[in-house]
């Protein structure tokens, strides 16, 4: 008790307090960093996943246009309702979701929560959510302006 009440004891208390603050700072900084880096990684994984989904939709579109060209070589362009049917096809959406999930997993993220595709305003847009964050990617499709 005597040592805590004289000047030497007070210095010791202050130094111990400062050491505690420094140790707490290290632990707190590390924990905050982990959260920030995890959030950044999820964000990047979501971007990569939605681009993969949009690319998968584009691949399906090109495949269907090519198939239509094979069936009717004189008019290989798509029919006006090809894209709306494409984005409503559960198999196409499932393939896009699998592509997105593959990329999400490769980026150490969880699989996507949801994926939907729309055909409007002259573009096909893929929208997905990953851990609650929405992500979008699109490609130009003039056929979509007809609806």
């Amino acid at each position, binding site marked *: 008790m005597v040592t805590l009440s004289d000047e030497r004891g007070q210095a010791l208390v202050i130094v111990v307090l400062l050491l505690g603050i*420094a140790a707490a700072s*290290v632990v707190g900084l590390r924990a905050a960093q982990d959260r920030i880096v995890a959030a950044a990684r999820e964000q990047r994984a979501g971007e*990569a996943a939605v681009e993969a989904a949009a690319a998968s939709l584009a691949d399906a579109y090109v495949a269907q246009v090519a198939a239509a060209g094979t069936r009717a070589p004189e008019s290989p362009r798509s029919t006006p309702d090809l894209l709306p049917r494409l984005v409503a096809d559960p198999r196409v959406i499932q393939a896009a979701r699998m592509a997105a999930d*593959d990329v999400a997993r490769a980026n150490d993220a969880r699989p996507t929560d949801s994926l939907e595709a729309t055909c409007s305003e002259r573009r096909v847009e893929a929208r997905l959510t990953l851990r609650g964050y929405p992500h979008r990617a699109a490609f130009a499709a003039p056929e979509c302006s007809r609806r």
Partner: protein
Amino acid sequence: MVELALVLPVALLLIAAVLLVAEVGVARLALEHGAAEAARAGALTNDDALVRATAAAAVAPLDSARVAVTIEPAQNAPPRSSAPRGSLVRVELRYVVPLPLGFAGLPRLIVLGKAARRIEWSP
């Protein structure tokens, strides 16, 4: 005075630890960003030199000369050498954090950043 002499080295060590943790945090974020940008470049082009240049530019404020870049698969390896569209390209960045007392035999502190993207280009 005696207490101060006893505690000062520990206090300095903790201050150095705070600074080091902050530096590691900056490196982790920079490497995540750099890896994501490099993977994006790898998804759009079949050019490892461009992927490395993208990584080097994106890891600022880190010294890009200390960042090692690994690209999988390599430019001339399958599937990138044949029909890669739809497969994944992975980029890993590795950075050795310069330690203030590294010369004293402290273990090297290595920070990693990695990212993967679906390859978009076709030959």
